[in-house]
Structures are given as C-alpha cells and as structure tokens.
C-alpha cells in the first residue's frame, strides 16, 4: 500500500487528571476506510480533534497527508474535513444557508456557492429540506447535512466522528453508502465508531482503542484470528442443566463458558478446535441433552470483549496515575 495518510507517534493529551489520549501510534494508508473502534470515553474524539488541528497534543507527533498537525496546521486544514460527533452545522440556520456559508468561507462566489449548495443538497437527498432549519431535521437528514457540509470543497481525507451513532438502520445504511462512495472516489476516510459490525462492514483496517491507547490493530480478519479460533455455541434441552453444562464445558475446553441471554444457550471461546469434539462427548456422558451446536468464527464483539476485558483488569493501575 502506498504512502501514509496519517502517521502518529506517541500522541498524548490529558485534561487535568484524565489521560484522554495516552500514547497513540497510528499508521493509516491513503485510500480506504480506517476504523477507530472504542467504547465511550476511549479517546476517539480527542484523537480526531488533534488530527484535525483543533487540539495541540501534549506530547508526540502527528502527520496528516505529510504535514505536521502543529507546525503545518494550515496545510492540514486545507486538505481535510471534519464531521464532528455532535451538531457540526449551525442548527438555527437552514440547510442551504449552512452550505452557502461554508462555500463562501471556502472561496466560492455567491452564485457559484448557491449552485454548489444546491448540488450537494440534491446529491444527499435533502433538496426538499433546503429551506428548513437544521434543528427541524430528522436524525438521518442531520447526519447527511453534516457530511455534505464536509464536502463543500472535496477533501483528500475526511474524519467522521461516530457518523451513525443514534441512527435507525435505514439511515445508517445511507451513511454507509456515502462512505463507500467517498472511498470509491479516492477519498481517505477515518471514522470512529462504537459499533463492531460497522467497523467490520466498512473498515479495511481497524484500531481498537481503550483508555487512550491502541490495544489492537489490524484488518477485521486479523483481529478475529488474534483472539482465537472462534466460539462454540451450544443449545440445551432444559435450562436447569445449564449450570452443569457450564462446568463440564469449562473443564473440557480449559476456558470459561458463558451463559447467553437465551436461558438454554451458552457459548465458549475456543483456542483449539480439536477439543470441541471431546467437550461435546463429555456433555452427553454427563447426561446433558444438547439440541443444537455450532462452531462460529469469532465476531468482532467477542474480539472487543476479549481485548477490553484485559484492559478492564488494568483499570485500577491507570486510574492511579
């Protein structure tokens, strides 16, 4: 893969005692979607704000499209766009006023700016809402105008901070289509998300961050592989036997088995597929009736749990700083 669109080394930023970003190293190649996955408060927004030149890092370095975000902030700003997590347009203004405002600020003449605004509203299916205040838009429309506002001048790189949080499935799909369209046209997209399936669906590479640190990085396949071979899912005839089944499976597989939401189901992560047959034999020997079993690829959910599970154990240590 060609040159790097983003490169950071040891990026740090604290707010008082909160280490929002605690040493982030990223290498994002140009083109494609890079996903930054993390729970609330992981430091996703702070990282993006540093990369978009809104915050100065306390330590470390970051280059975006080859320009240093501190020394060469203006060069970065002319080439990237930011779609923030929260209302990134003026909610008091109408859709067309927002786009015209940005077009004027970016150097369009008034008539050209008007045309540009109309084209963008058309492309994003917002032509009917052009003259309505953004505060009256639905969640999906609002997200589309947020993204449209970032494309008034097409950027080489776009930051999307949790672009689909709080959207219904249809609106979420529309945003995904937009992201895919952007990539098809050669734009590099860095998006943050709390949704594992979103990262799985969209991102070529994913950095999992927690407590301001990258705890895993790779393609979604690599991340899954790093966690183990997958999971064994088992359904029982009767819920009373589940506790017993948990003990048997744990002993046979050498890993804890976890009860699922379904009262007759449980699952266990497995490292060695050869043990599965033995575990199932062990269940029937103990008189537990299995109605169904399946061997699954680990989901990104499981990857995430596995990874942040580790981090959670380290929490007291981090808080002590």
């Amino acid at each position, binding site marked *: 893969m060609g040159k790097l669109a983003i490169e950071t080394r040891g990026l740090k930023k604290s707010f008082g005692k909160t280490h929002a970003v605690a040493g982030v190293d990223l290498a994002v190649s140009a083109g494609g979607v890079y996903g930054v996955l993390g729970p609330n408060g992981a430091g996703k927004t702070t990282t993006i704000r540093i990369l978009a030149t809104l915050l100065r890092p306390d330590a470390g370095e970051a280059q975006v499209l080859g320009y240093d975000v501190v020394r060469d902030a203006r060069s970065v700003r002319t080439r990237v766009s930011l779609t923030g997590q929260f209302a990134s*347009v003026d909610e008091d*203004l109408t859709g067309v006023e927002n786009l015209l405002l940005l077009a004027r600020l970016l*150097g369009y003449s008034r008539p050209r700016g008007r045309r540009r605004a109309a084209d963008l509203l058309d492309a994003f299916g917002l032509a009917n809402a052009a003259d309505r205040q953004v505060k009256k838009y639905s969640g999906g429309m609002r997200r589309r105008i947020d993204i449209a506002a970032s494309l008034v001048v097409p950027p080489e790189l776009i930051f999307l901070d949790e672009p689909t949080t709080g959207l219904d499935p249809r609106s979420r799909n529309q945003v995904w289509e937009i992201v895919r369209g*952007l990539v098809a046209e050669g734009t590099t997209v860095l998006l943050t998300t709390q949704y594992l399936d979103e990262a799985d669906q969209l991102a070529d590479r994913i950095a999992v961050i927690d407590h301001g640190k990258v705890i895993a990085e790779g393609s979604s396949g690599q991340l899954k592989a790093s966690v183990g071979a997958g999971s064994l899912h088992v359904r029982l005839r009767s819920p009373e036997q589940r506790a017993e089944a948990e003990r048997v499976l744990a002993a046979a597989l050498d890993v804890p088995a976890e009860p699922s939401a379904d009262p007759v189901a449980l699952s266990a992560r497995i490292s060695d597929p050869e043990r599965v047959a033995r575990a199932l034999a062990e269940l029937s020997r103990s008189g537990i009736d299995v109605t169904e079993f399946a061997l699954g690829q680990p989901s990104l959910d499981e990857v995430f749990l596995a990874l942040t599970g580790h981090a959670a154990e380290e929490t007291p240590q981090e808080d002590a700083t």
Partner: protein
Amino acid sequence: MNATSAEQASAPVTEDALRSVLAGERPSSPGPVLTSLTFGWRALLKIKHVPEQLVDVTMFPIMFTLMFTYLFGGALAGSTQEYLQFLLPGILVQANVMITMNTGITLNTDIQKGVFDRFRSLPVWRPSPLVGALLGDVMRYSIGSAIVITLGLVLGFRPEGGAVGVVLSVALLLVFSFCLSWLWTMLSLILRTPNSVAGVSMMVMFPLTFVSNIFVDPKTMPGWMQAVVEVNPITHLATVVRGLMHGSVPAGEIGWVLASSVLLVAVFGPITMVLYRNKK
C-alpha cells in the same frame, strides 16, 4: 410536510450524484475581510431565525430611558424635560455598553456547540468567526440606538447638533462598542457557562456605567470619586456623545475615546485569540 415525508420523498444518495459533487473545484481561499463579513452574515441570519434574541436590545433601552427620565428628572434637573436633554445621550451610551455584554453570553453558548469545531478546522483567518460575530452585533447596537433616540425624540429630546450630530455620535458609539466587545469575548472564553459570563459582566458593567457622568454631573461627588470618573472611558464617551448631539465637537475627548477603543482591542484582542486557539 413533516420530516419523514420529506425524507422518504427524496431519493437516497446515489453513487453518480456523489461522484459529481466530489469532482467539485477547489477555489482559492478568501481574505480575512471577506471571511469576517461572511461570519457577520451568519450572525444576521441568526437574528432573522431567532428574533427573540433582540429582546435585550429593545427592552433594556426603553426601560432605562423611561425609568431614569421620570425617576430622577424632577429631582436632579428641576424638570424631566431639562434632564432628558442631559440624560438621553448618556442613556444611549449605557444602553450600548449593556448590549455589548450579550456578545460574551451568546459567544459562550455558541462556542460550546459542535459547529465551532468546524469553523476552527477551516482554512480561514482564525479570528474571523469572532470578528464576524462582533460585526453582527453592530447591527444590534444600531437597533438599540435607534430605539433610544426615537423614544427620546417622542419624549421631547431636541438635539441641537441635528441629524449630523446624532449620526456621528452613534457612529463613534458603534466603534467603541465593537472594541469593548473584545473584553466580553475574552471572558466568554475563560468562564465555563453563559451564567457565569453574565454574572461577571454585570460586576464589571455596573461600576463602569454608574461611576461616570452618564446620570449626573460629577461635581457633587467626593474628590476621589471624581478622579475615578475622570479616568473611566465611559465618562469620555458620554461627554463626546453629549457634545456631538448638542452641536459641539470636543476634539480632545474624541481622541480619548478613539485611543481607548484602540487600547481595548490591542489588549483584549490578542488575549482572546490566544485563548481561542488553545480552546479545548
């Protein structure tokens, strides 16, 4: 037409449409004057969409003019008519200076919103969102001034300087108010909430406007207070506005006002910008 019907009526984003908007050109960046004026245009649009925000520029001036004229007029100058000739230019100053406070409160609310992140990530002259907001406020000062003067004329205020004197004094007032606003922009970046901005502004504002010659001639005040009144820029501003409206041109005093205007921007402008740049 509600949100959902509009949304369903419009086709979802198509690849072709997206491709064509992404082929858009990259115009060259405009200069600081144009970007500031554009942000000023944003402020005017906000007044258009949220006219409630004009309450302070209409109610304050009306209240003050009526209250002080009829409350103090008889006692201080023998008759309300006579006092009005003295007071109205002063009330005009006070109304404007009061209205500038709102700048900080509005900005504090505005900056908390995500849209300021977008503005700050644009390749434009960095102070332009702030300068634009202050330019938009000039509109508010003009409205406030127009209201005070109209009300004054109705009540019997007769400026000897005529229309020219009135226009000149308002122009000077707008310049001073624009410059004073930088104090509030600075405060709005230091303090966390709009409420605390309002509180601190009041604390600055009351002594600044009352310990001056807006309401009474300072001759009856104790010596130390006269000294304070004398260095208060509001005193000089009121003297100038009074002079211009009644037909004299106090050149030295005008110099004082312009100098203090420049000083206000020179001190609070850069501090504001440093705070703005390092804003989290």
